[in-house]
């Protein structure tokens, strides 16, 4: 399968400069919306007032130099800041679910929003199969038949099945770095999330593994909403439909969302001068 370098959305039009997508609710993937989201650690506000949408069936790339809050914002979507002591203000919704509502359970949010991390992190003491179904087991799915079907489906989706189908009980760490990352993607997919968050998933991988995963991402977009943090602008142009640019604000301490729009437009004719400075390499 070839990689489409300039993916054009095939249905609903992109409306407006802020990248808000107007679509009817689709069965595949949920819309994620952030409104005025800020994250503070102690006294330090890391990122502020982010209003952003992740559209279903699209890959939204969050780009920008390090320290501008891209990863921080991504982690607000699956409430990972609950554990690290970051205070999140604003409103985050995943489909019809208000993520930070008083009676929303973070575990349930996380079973609807999957995450893949910067460095591949399969559970080191588990086999390939156990890793693939770990999420399902943690969420109370015990039926062996169900687990086997789910593992096969997820590993297919991660383009890993042919490689591992004969050694599912081998330790996960026997796989190469790129394969481990695909296993982590399979693990996240097995839980059937509506949103998949990817935090620089290729930064620890070699170029060939990176290319394979980028191809995977473009395939996955049709079923899951994907939010992809990347510091590699070229990667953003290769796989994403929408790009959100994060830069440090005036105070040089707090990150903010500078501009968001269709990827081609962001890199060719950005509306904001700061975006232009960033994509042309003058900044960051």
């Amino acid at each position, binding site marked *: 399968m070839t990689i489409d370098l300039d993916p054009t959305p095939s249905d609903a039009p992109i409306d407006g400069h802020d990248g808000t997508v107007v679509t009817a609710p689709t069965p595949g993937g949920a819309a994620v919306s952030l409104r005025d989201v800020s994250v503070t650690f102690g006294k330090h506000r890391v990122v502020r007032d982010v209003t952003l949408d992740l559209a279903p069936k699209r890959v939204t790339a969050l780009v920008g130099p390090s320290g501008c809050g891209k990863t921080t914002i991504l982690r607000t979507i699956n409430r990972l800041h609950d554990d690290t002591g970051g205070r999140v203000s604003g409103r985050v919704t995943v489909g019809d679910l208000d993520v930070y509502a008083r009676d929303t359970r973070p575990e*349930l949010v*996380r079973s609807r929003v999957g995450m893949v991390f910067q460095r591949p*992190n399969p559970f*080191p*003491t588990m086999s390939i199969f156990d890793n693939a179904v770990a*999420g399902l087991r943690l969420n109370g799915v015990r039926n062996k038949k169900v687990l086997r079907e789910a593992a096969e489906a997820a590993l297919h989706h991660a383009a890993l099945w042919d490689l591992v189908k004969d050694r599912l009980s081998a330790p996960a760490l026997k796989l190469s770095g790129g394969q481990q990352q695909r296993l982590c993607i399979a693990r996240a997919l097995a839980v059937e999330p509506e949103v998949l968050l990817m935090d620089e998933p290729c930064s620890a991988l070699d170029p060939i593994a990176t290319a394979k995963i980028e191809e995977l991402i473009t395939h996955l977009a049709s079923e899951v909403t994907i939010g992809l943090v990347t510091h590699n602008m070229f990667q953003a142009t290769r796989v994403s439909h929408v790009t959100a640019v994060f830069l440090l604000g005036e105070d040089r301490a707090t990150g903010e969302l500078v501009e968001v729009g269709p990827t081609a437009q962001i890199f060719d004719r950005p509306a904001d001068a700061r975006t232009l400075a960033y994509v042309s390499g003058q900044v960051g």
Partner: protein
Amino acid sequence: MTTLLEEVPPPLAPVPGVARALRRRRRRPGGRLYAVLRIGGALVFGAVVVALVTTLVSGSSQAFGHFGPSLLWSGTYNVTKDQYPTGVFIVGTLVTTAVALVLAVAVGVATAAFLSELAPRAVAAPLSVAVDLIAAVPSIVVGLWGLLVLSPAFAHHVEPFLKRVPVLEWLLHGPALGPSMLLAGVVLAVMILPTVVALSRTAMAGVDVADREAARALGATRWQVVRTAVIPGARSGIEASVTLGMGRAMGETIAVAMVIGNTYTIPHSLLAPGATLGSAVINNFGEANPGLDRSAVVALVLVLVAITALVNVGGQLLLRARARATRT
């Protein structure tokens, strides 16, 4: 010639006073003294180790010569029949150690999990220090407390209570008189707990944050994170802590001697008094007649040293293997 320096340094020439001082210092033989000290220290240390081993071996040789290798497993004491109850003591050591391990590992790993994962940060550090404190208490004081406080408490309250639990009946039959294998096991558990907790806690804290995040991101509850990511990841460290705890339990003599009550037969219940290698040595060496009797006691010491050395070396190797694994 132009220069960047503020002043021009004078040409190099020897300063007479300095040269004389250096010559004087080179003549003093201080360096050799240091080498003698170093090597002397190492030699003395080596001599101590050698003396230890040879004394134990030669001291027990008479007994081994007389009883033969059956010295190691015989279960009855009968000098005329050439039987020395080493087997009783070995069983006693193993049983008390087993009781101590069961208790210490269950409580210790759970405590470590609490301190490492579930407790609020501010509280975890001082609590860890508190758990470690009992390691500083001399074993004689623990033994005294065990004998004068725990023993009556066990005889009057704990053991009758435990006897009512149906599952434990086969372990705990017979009268509860106080000094017993169970009590010795409990006292040992108290003493090895800091070892198990400290090492398990280090192992758990060393589990990669990434593994924990992975479990979290899949929707795991806090305990599920501990169960799926932390404890499996810390397993080798926990094993090392168990092994080292076992070594400590086997080697502990004075506290056990005070609470185990001393017999020469293999007990059939944990509530009965028994004897371990260490307690047998303490209780028998004083009255042993010089010659064969005393040699037999020294043989007990040799067996004890051999067993504890093996276990401790095993534990150290496990720790080192783990250190190597986490570095890669």
